[in-house]
């Protein structure tokens, strides 16, 4: 492969949010590269800072939030110091976002067609007439009927899945280079979810944008992501290709997440759960924060933050277990079995 087509880059980003209770260190040193045609899945529990990272990419930090160190590059220019006007040129046109709840993302008092066309008129500076043609075209692309009735109806007249399709159409109206999907299917039911995922994959092939896909569902992300980054307490703990995450997971937290996939659980046994809850990020203690919930914790985990260890060129892990001096540990039995099943399934596919 020749030179990578890197669209955006997050480099050692730290975000603090001031609240009444104290300063929350929401993001604590995250680096990610976004490449055209590639999807990165961001996985983490609620409160792990994954949505905060996404919002920062759009300059949508909450009140009291600030970048304390690190940079965001877009086309090799740092964007975190942009003025509002510069942000406006970037937001929506170059970087677009799909939110969890489409009902909150759409204006209930405006027709679908008007909302879609408005985005096109403002960003591409075309006439309303032309925008309408483009908008109808977009509706067809996301799998809705492109009829005048559809164009002139309001968000409440659509079902949840259709609304999410409209939100996607809106995000795509300016042909963004980077699309951020913040749990786009969490509010939808399973069959609609499958359709929306299929649609996003299809549109990525057509437009070739980079996608950041945020979710807490590992099996869902496996369907579309090229790489997966596992986030815990504001840091990336493991980052690798989808295959490596599922077949050679290294971090105890990744093990825990993988073990929690219900599909592989024996029916008459107690479901696997991760004990405890994620730490508060106001004055977090030293060291690897997952060690407080992990049975694999070493002494050094409580004193010093682990650096990234490279397992392969595409696989990095922040865990002291990868240090040559660390004792060797094996992953839980159930997970080993699960990986074996996945391996054999894969070989089966390979032979076909």
């Amino acid at each position, binding site marked *: 492969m020749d030179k990578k087509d890197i669209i955006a880059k997050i480099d050692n980003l730290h975000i603090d949010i001031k609240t009444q209770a104290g300063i929350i260190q929401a993001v604590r040193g995250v680096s990610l590269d976004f490449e055209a045609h590639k999807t990165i899945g961001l996985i983490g529990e609620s409160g792990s800072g994954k949505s905060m990272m996404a919002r920062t990419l759009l300059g949508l930090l909450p009140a009291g939030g600030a970048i304390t160190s690190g940079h965001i590059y877009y086309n090799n220019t740092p964007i975190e110091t942009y003025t509002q006007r510069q942000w406006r040129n970037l937001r929506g046109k170059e970087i677009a976002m799909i939110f969890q709840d489409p009902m909150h993302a759409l204006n209930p008092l405006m027709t679908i067609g008007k909302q879609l066309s408005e985005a096109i008129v403002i960003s591409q500076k075309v006439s309303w007439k032309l925008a309408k043609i483009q908008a109808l075209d977009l509706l067809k692309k996301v799998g809705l009927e492109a009829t005048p009735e559809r164009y002139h109806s309001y968000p409440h007249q659509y079902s949840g899945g259709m609304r999410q399709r409209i939100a996607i159409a809106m995000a795509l109206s300016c042909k963004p280079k980077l699309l951020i999907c913040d749990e786009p299917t969490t509010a939808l039911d399973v069959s609609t979810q499958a359709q929306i995922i299929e649609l996003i994959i299809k549109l990525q092939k057509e437009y070739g944008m980079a996608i950041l896909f945020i979710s807490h569902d590992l099996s869902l992300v496996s369907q579309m992501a090229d790489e997966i980054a596992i986030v815990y307490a504001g840091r990336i703990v493991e980052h690798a290709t989808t295959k490596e995450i599922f077949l050679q997971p290294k971090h105890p937290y990744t093990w825990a997440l993988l073990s929690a996939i219900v599909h592989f659980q024996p029916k008459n046994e107690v479901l696997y759960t*991760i004990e405890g809850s994620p730490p508060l990020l106001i004055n977090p203690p030293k060291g690897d924060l997952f060690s407080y919930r992990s049975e694999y914790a070493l002494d050094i985990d409580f004193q010093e933050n682990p650096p990234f260890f490279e397992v392969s060129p595409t696989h990095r892990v922040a865990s002291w277990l990868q240090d040559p001096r660390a004792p060797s540990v094996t992953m839980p039995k159930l997970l080993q079995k699960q990986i074996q099943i996945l391996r054999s399934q894969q070989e089966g596919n390979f032979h076909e």
Partner: protein
Amino acid sequence: MNNTIPLLSVQNVSLSFKQSRHHQVHALKNISFSIKQGEIFGLVGESGSGKSTMGRAIARLVTPQTGSIKLETRELLCKMTSKERLDSSRDIQMIFQDPMSALNPKWTVMQMLLEPLHIHQGKLPKQEKEDTVFTMMQQVGLDPAFANRYVHEFSGGQRQRISIARALMNRPKLLICDESIAALDLSIQAQIVNLLKSLREQFNLSMIFISHDLSMVHYISDRIGVIYKGDLLEIADADTIYYHPQHDYTKSLLHAIPKITLV
């Protein structure tokens, strides 16, 4: 002979909502099924399929036009005296998707958990009532020291534990869980499901578990019913539905579950 009477039997229940003078939505069409003592019955279907309406009809939050719903031998779909209504509401309890809107934000946990006791066991001395609350909090995995806190001070999983505790205060016979874990994180979902399973054993509780997540429903239920547009398409053992589905719609639901796909 008592064993042969099902705990709940639903027979030919139909329900339609009037949309306008000429338009009706048939939410439930001639549905029949029964639940044994101590059984967990899963109801799956997509949104708008009528699965929640079924649960609400059993809890008598909506009234079906025809059919009969019997709890043991007691008919629920007829005119009841207020005493009978009180009894049936004690025996059937429901927990919902969003605990934040199901719980009272202005009450402490203690107040909320005491209320069911005031209604059904009003004569109990105060001290005894409070003791019951503390034991119940322990049983659902909440620290009794939190009894004087308010809902907003708890996390999502803990809130759902509070609403489970409130539903179980008067030892109901049937618990209806309407998408009770859909709004929670994956690992918290597992905690709540484990809790429900262990409570079933402790209280010999029967449950109706309503969800669109077939893999979770398969894990928790003994039998599963699949609802589509108000029709009950298929009822079978959880394993039969999950591994050998008969109906095309069940197959498509199973197909939609996100599976790990490695390219």
